[in-house]
């Protein structure tokens, strides 16, 4: 069951991610990406990360991707056909090879040891447990996140005003 789920969700997420970067139209990319997010949420849930799985759906798939879709529709961004059709296949090959080369140490050499999961403690990954951590040990990063979001908010406002007053 676990293997089946992993293969299904994992394979689907890779396929959708590929779809997202290959699609000609940004809208298709975004839809594909939302699919990837959902698959990842499933994978999170499989690992007892319940809160994170929920947030993945709510924040990522729900909010962030919705924002992307908004931008795409508002700007009516379209890949310029002429420009994109001139894409060089060799470039992509080169990109895959070089980015993959970064992972040679990780994927191949790291495989020497098989790391197994242990049984999770009760309450692992629940909203209560993670929330408790957030409000105690990690209260500082949590507060910084509020500064971050405030800065981003104000920044977005000021950047979108072409001419301010």
């Amino acid at each position: 069951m676990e293997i089946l789920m992993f293969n299904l969700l994992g394979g689907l997420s890779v396929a959708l991610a590929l779809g997202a970067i290959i699609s000609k139209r940004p809208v298709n990319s975004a839809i594909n990406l939302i699919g990837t997010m959902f698959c990842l949420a499933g994978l999170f849930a499989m690992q007892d990360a319940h809160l994170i799985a929920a947030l993945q759906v709510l924040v990522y798939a729900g909010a962030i991707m919705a924002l992307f879709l908004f931008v795409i529709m508002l700007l009516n961004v379209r890949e310029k056909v002429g420009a994109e059709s001139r894409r060089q296949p060799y470039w992509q090959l080169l990109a895959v090879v070089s980015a993959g080369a970064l992972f040679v140490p990780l994927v191949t050499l790291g495989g020497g040891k098989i790391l197994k999961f242990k049984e999770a403690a009760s309450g692992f990954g629940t909203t209560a447990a993670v929330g408790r951590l957030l409000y105690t040990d990690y209260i500082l990063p949590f507060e910084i996140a509020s500064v971050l979001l405030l800065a981003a908010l104000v920044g977005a406002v000021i950047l979108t005003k072409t001419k301010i007053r």
Partner: protein
Amino acid sequence: MWGLEHIWWVPILPLIGATINGLVGHLLSKRAVGVVAVGSTGLSFLVALAAFGNILGLAPDQRVYESVLFTWIQAGSFTAEAALQVDPLSAVFLMVVTGVGFLIHVYSVGYMGHEAGYPRYFAYLNLFMFSMLLLILGANFLLMFIGWEGVGLCSYLLIGYYYEKQSASDAGKKAFVMNRIGDFGFLLAIMWIFWTFGSIDYTTVFPVAHDKLALGGLAVTGITLLLFLGATGKSAQIPLYTWLPDAMEGPTPVSALIHAATMVTAGVYMVARCNALFNLAPMTMMIVALIGATTAIFAATMGLYQFDIKRVLAYSTVSQLGYMFLACGVGAYVAAVFHVMTHAFFKACLFLGSGSVIHGMSGEQDMRQMGGLGKKMPMTHATFLISTLAIAGIPPLAGFFSKDEILLSAFLGHTPGHLLYWVLATIAAAVTAFYMFRLYFMTFTGELRAEDHHVRDHVHESPNVMTMPLVILAGLAVVGGFLGLPMIEGGHALKNFLDPVFAQPGHAAGGHDVSVGLELLLMGVSVGMGVLGILTARYYYSVKPEAAVELLNKGGMIKSIYTLMQNKYYVDEIYDALIVKPIVAVSDKGLWRFFDVKVVDGLVNFAATFFMGLGSMFRTAHTGLTRSYAYAMVFGGVFLAGFWLFLSSGK
């Protein structure tokens, strides 16, 4: 003791003068500017004089005074103090710099009187005095370096003083570049010294040099070679000498002060100061002597056929500096310092005299336009003749004693090849006498050749403010040599004064073991060479001027040599072709256009062209920027990861 304790005022006073003239000089009257500049230097000279008196009053082995103002940089094992040190060596330089400097300031008041930017000139000149005094008084290498950079900077600013002239600002840049090459060597040497000794204070480094460094070892040879590289840049030795003749674009008093009497001798000071290190590096000593002797003869021959009065003097300076390094190279530091001193007197006098001539000739510098000025400018003529005789080495003038001592030291030296150096230096002495008297005869005797009748009618003697310094300097050029009368028992006065600085541990500080007969013989030879040079010059340029022209017209060898020398052996052209152009090409065409535009902008394109051939190169080159930046990051990451993995797998 009044004097030594106030030694800080010696450099600070000119700095104050520079600050006043630099910041508010344009608001002051010319007179006030002159008073501030001359006054600050004059006071500085008085304090230096008092300090010198104090030093003389101490017992010979007590003559080191250090004055610490504050700790400048202190961090861990590294300490650099803002401290001044007065010992016999710096005291001699102190007197020369403040004394000659003061006279030249006085002279400048007259000479620069008509120039715009009068306060600027004096601000730079005072700043120069400050830097030079810091250079010679600093108690550690770092302070010396700061002074070293400072004098280079002021020299650069003053050479480019007439910046409206393209040649002047080019000359300034050239001086700066060559000095930077030397400074770079000096800085590395300082770092190496710190690395070896854990300190950069003279009082810590020199006494232990003998124990810490192996004779002729890599460390000491490296350090001294780098130091000498610094000296070649500052003191215009082969191969970094070409800036000095070009530096004559600056105002003439500047040439006298910076490019003859003081700054260019900083290299000699540095080598003499570091004698404890140089004595341990025989190979460096040999190179120093070789370069010195070669420069002496090389520059002298270049002076033979110049027509610009200041350029002749410039080549002569390069050549005389060569003598000083020759003396250092054979271990005769006293002779080197002695020659620095006498040279400062007569060369400053010559430069100021030439300035007076140029002043009288309404700015004309070409000797072919001069002639017969002796009658119209009697003061200048007399002082100039005395100095010319001094540089030619005619007894009993100052140049004779110091040059003779160098030649004697070279003859008796222990450095390999010392006899060759002696021969070179002796020939150079004859050549020097020849071209200096060529200059003299062309300028002061015969008929005035100027075509412009405005200039002809306008020739006049310079005002007193300019001639008085000439007289004083000429007087010094007459008597300065007596400090080094070699006949006195147990070495001469200057030698006795300086010996504690140059005493080598383990060696008795003694004079040369030489018979009076040999000494007299060598003197005879050098004086003979000088007289020979003078007489030849008299034949060609005074008695029978057409002979020189005839000689040239015969063509062949002599003519080609003449052309070669007149073009300064094409050294500048060679430098340009060998060094400047390739560097420009590499940095502009190569590194920038290639690295930034090709490799970085389009490392991708580079790889792509591999596959797709040159045909599509132009198209791919325009595919945009940001993405290629991302590529560069990824490739950099791959490089890092591979490198790191390689390193850690080695363990």
